[in-house]
């Protein structure tokens, strides 16, 4: 089945998200109100003194649960603002540059494809290759496709450093920063440039879509994690005037970048750039269209590296940018950047979630005395409505035919990367650096070291199970045996849910460990790209 997806013709078709109608907003509002009322009921039930067992653990469990629920509420509020900007035909004669960057070790053939695709873009423009490979073949490829080759060696700040240097060397007014693994469609610039008629618009972001999902479980999961973001989530953020730049596929007004002293530098350079632009008063636009497709990490190790980079980097926005720019942001922007920059706290909450059953088995700490049946009865409506909302907003995905679904691979992958997020959060707290690691464009062989904490977790689970069985067979007093049965095995069920997710992650790592390195772009025929609008 995966093999047929490989030839998914749908991928190479221009596509845009559905319009936002009053009716659809109305039905969505119904769901949100139902969700909020269910959460209120759950809240009312949760905080009862009868539920207290160990107070510190109960506080901890409550923080985990309610941190998660609070984020869900924020996301729902965000969806309430959902908005799709109307297409604006660009003026003729704008001076536009396309930047793409190359670094040592990146495959030459990929640039061959990307630069060719750039040269196919309809709107008149100049493509620049910002190169520090010191490899003459890169210059040759650039010239083959009519791109300007700029040698920018030894600049600090990796990609952003090269971009900033190049900005000083060009005289165009608009710059599209293209990730080298992305293949743009010919109509890319026609879809975005129109918005710059508004002199206050600083940047226009489009969806990021991918074409190598077929390669592995990891690739599919990683792509699934992004679908909702580059659809309803960003549309909501756009509605609230707080859509962000994602580094790749973002078109900037050069003047805007100059007003903040150039592209931001750091592990989350894109987010730093957008918060600074917003603080400087520039407006942003998100257009939910598929006008390019690129690559997601194919093997578990590369995925984790990418996630570590982001989770470490994003906290920088929380610690250094958000407080500094606070007064210059609008209320929604403050909320939005606070929410984004605390996203990776999920590593800490998942760690605690994973730890709770083990604390019970090894230290006898029980967080809460809750009737499991009541927990389900009160909690289930919240879960059902959250799932309904998740499915409902999929009507606004950028490419529903290939993106709809429960995204369970993405969920498993997100859970199984908790050690990475946790590490990222800890590094941020002690302000320790991780080296800049470029995201691998091709699969890396072997079982990733990022699976070690997961394997440890599985081993700990098995050892605990053995210990508890031994304990209950030979040690535990007869007087409590029958009475603790439900609690003990209930806790095991709790731990087992986590183990299933983690096992999924280990599977993803194992499956991608034997991936044949392949160059997915080689199969792409640029003539197949259809820039005409799809039929409804």
């Amino acid at each position, binding site marked *: 089945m995966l093999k047929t997806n490989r030839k998914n013709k749908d991928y190479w078709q221009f596509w845009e998200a559905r319009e936002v109608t009053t009716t659809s907003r109305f039905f969505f509002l119904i769901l949100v109100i139902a969700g909020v009322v269910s959460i209120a009921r759950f809240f009312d039930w949760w905080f009862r003194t009868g539920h207290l067992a160990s107070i510190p653990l109960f506080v901890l469990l409550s923080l985990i649960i309610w941190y998660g629920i609070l984020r869900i509420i924020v996301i729902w509020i965000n969806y309430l603002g959902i908005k799709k900007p109307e297409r604006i035909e660009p003026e003729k004669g704008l001076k536009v540059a396309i930047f793409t960057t190359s670094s040592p070790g990146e495959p030459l053939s990929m640039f061959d494809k990307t630069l060719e695709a750039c040269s196919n873009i309809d709107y008149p423009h100049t493509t620049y290759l910002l190169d520090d490979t010191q490899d003459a073949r890169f210059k040759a490829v650039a010239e083959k496709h009519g791109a300007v080759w700029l040698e920018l060696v030894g600049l600090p700040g990796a990609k952003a450093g090269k971009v900033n240097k190049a900005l000083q060397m060009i005289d165009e007014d608009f710059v599209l920063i293209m990730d080298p693994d992305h293949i743009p469609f010919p109509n890319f610039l026609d879809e975005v440039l129109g918005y710059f008629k508004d002199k206050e618009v600083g940047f226009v972001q489009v969806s990021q879509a991918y074409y190598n999902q077929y390669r592995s479980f990891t690739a599919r999961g990683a792509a699934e994690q992004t679908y909702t973001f580059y659809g309803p989530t960003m549309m909501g953020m756009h509605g609230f005037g707080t859509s962000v730049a994602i580094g790749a596929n973002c078109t900037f007004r050069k003047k805007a970048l100059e007003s903040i002293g150039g592209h931001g530098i750091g592990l989350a350079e894109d987010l730093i750039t957008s918060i600074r632009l917003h603080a400087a008063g520039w407006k942003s636009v998100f257009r939910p269209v598929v006008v390019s497709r690129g690559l997601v990490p194919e093997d578990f190790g590369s995925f984790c590296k990418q996630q570590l980079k982001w989770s470490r980097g994003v906290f920088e926005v929380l610690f250094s940018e958000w407080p500094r720019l606070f007064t210059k942001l609008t209320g929604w922007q403050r909320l939005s950047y606070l929410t984004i920059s605390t996203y990776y706290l999920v590593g800490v909450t998942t760690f605690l979630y994973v730890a709770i059953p083990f604390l019970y088995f090894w230290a006898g700490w029980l967080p809460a005395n809750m009737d499991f049946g009541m927990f389900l009865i009160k909690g289930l409506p919240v879960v059902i409505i959250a799932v309904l909302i998740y499915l409902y907003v999929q009507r606004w995905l950028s490419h529903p035919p290939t993106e709809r679904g429960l995204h369970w691979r993405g969920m498993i992958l997100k859970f199984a990367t908790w050690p990475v997020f946790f590490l990222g959060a800890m590094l941020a707290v002690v302000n320790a650096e991780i080296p800049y690691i470029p995201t691998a464009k091709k699969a890396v062989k072997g079982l990733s070291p990022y699976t070690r904490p997961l394997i440890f977790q599985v081993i700990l689970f098995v050892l605990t199970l053995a210990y508890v069985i031994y304990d209950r067979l030979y040690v535990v007093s007869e007087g409590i*045996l029958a*009475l603790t049965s439900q609690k003990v095995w209930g806790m095991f069920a709790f731990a087992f849910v986590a183990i299933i997710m983690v096992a999924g992650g280990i599977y993803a790592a194992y499956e991608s460990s034997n991936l044949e390195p392949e160059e997915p772009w080689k199969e792409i025929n640029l003539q197949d790209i259809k820039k005409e609008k799809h039929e409804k």
Partner: protein
Amino acid sequence: MKNKLKRLAFVSAAAFLGIALVLIFVYLGNRSSGPISEALGTLGDKVTDVEHSLLMKGREPVRSKELAWFNKYRNDTALLRHPDTILLGVYDNDYQKSFDNILKLDKMLDAPLPLIQIYIAWGDKDNEQFPMLYAKAIYDLGSTPMITWEPWLNDFNREEHNLPPAIQPDKNGMAAVARGEYDFYIKAWAEDVKSFGHDIFIRLGHEMNDPYRYPWGPQNNKPKDFVAAWRHVVDVFRKMKVNNVLWIWAPQPAYLHYKEYYPGKNYVDWVGVGALNYGTVAPWSKWWTFKEIFGNYYDKLKPFKKPFMVTEMGSLTVGGERDEWFKKAFTNLPKKYPDLKAILFFDDNSDNTTLNKTLDWSIVDDSTTCEAIRTAIQTTWNVNEKK
């Protein structure tokens, strides 16, 4: 203006429908409170059963082995109805968390206790249904459960059970029980008792003649209604062929009227009374000996010709010597009260049902008292026949 109105209508319509959606969930939840929560409850019980059959086979039972002599009794209803020995038992208020106190008391008295009492009120809540988990746990420990079953009638959702509306459900409540209004609950119990599958004692509506105590008493009911209610409950069990219950009728003989409450010899297996010495903690109490409390009751209740059970035996420590109290009570007890066939210690260390302060009746940590009881039993009872 028009725009504002439109927006207001939009939001309030959505709010209305959203709340309606939740109410539908709530309604479905309530509707299914039968099957779903039952299924969840059964799931919980099943966990214990599965562990029991998978894991506990490999575990050596200790207590039930020590209580092996009691198997003869607990597996024979006729013998439980007229035992040829005195069965000791206990209520411990920690039982929901752990039976460890009871195991400790076993050791202190050097005699594992064959009867374990728990108290259950009537109602819709989970802890008001037949306590299958505890009954099974008690059986696994080698004992037999004695359940004090208290017909409080104010904890039922009257609408859900199609009960006639009532501001005070307990007013004339026994007549309502007798009319069969609460059969849904009684039948569910009978079903569970049957599936439990071993003999149990049930003390239904105790101290029904005390005018100041429980709602099933004279302030709400006529004696004949209590009797009718009792017979109705027993008849429901019998009709459903639930024959593993021994019914304990337990009046408070300190009051003048109690005979009127007797349901009849075919409806009662045992007669129970409490024997608690409050010492001098309350203005109305003084240091009474066991003989002064129970001896008097014994004579009054003898004409019913049923075996006696002291359902709660205990003494506080204010106003006298507790170890002496127990020593006197237990010395030569079988000779003094030949029809007394069961005694249950009241090992409750936080009793606040009678006075507006917490009373500690527990003896498990009082080694002098336990020693006194043990010595009295070992030297003056003919215990050898038991072991």
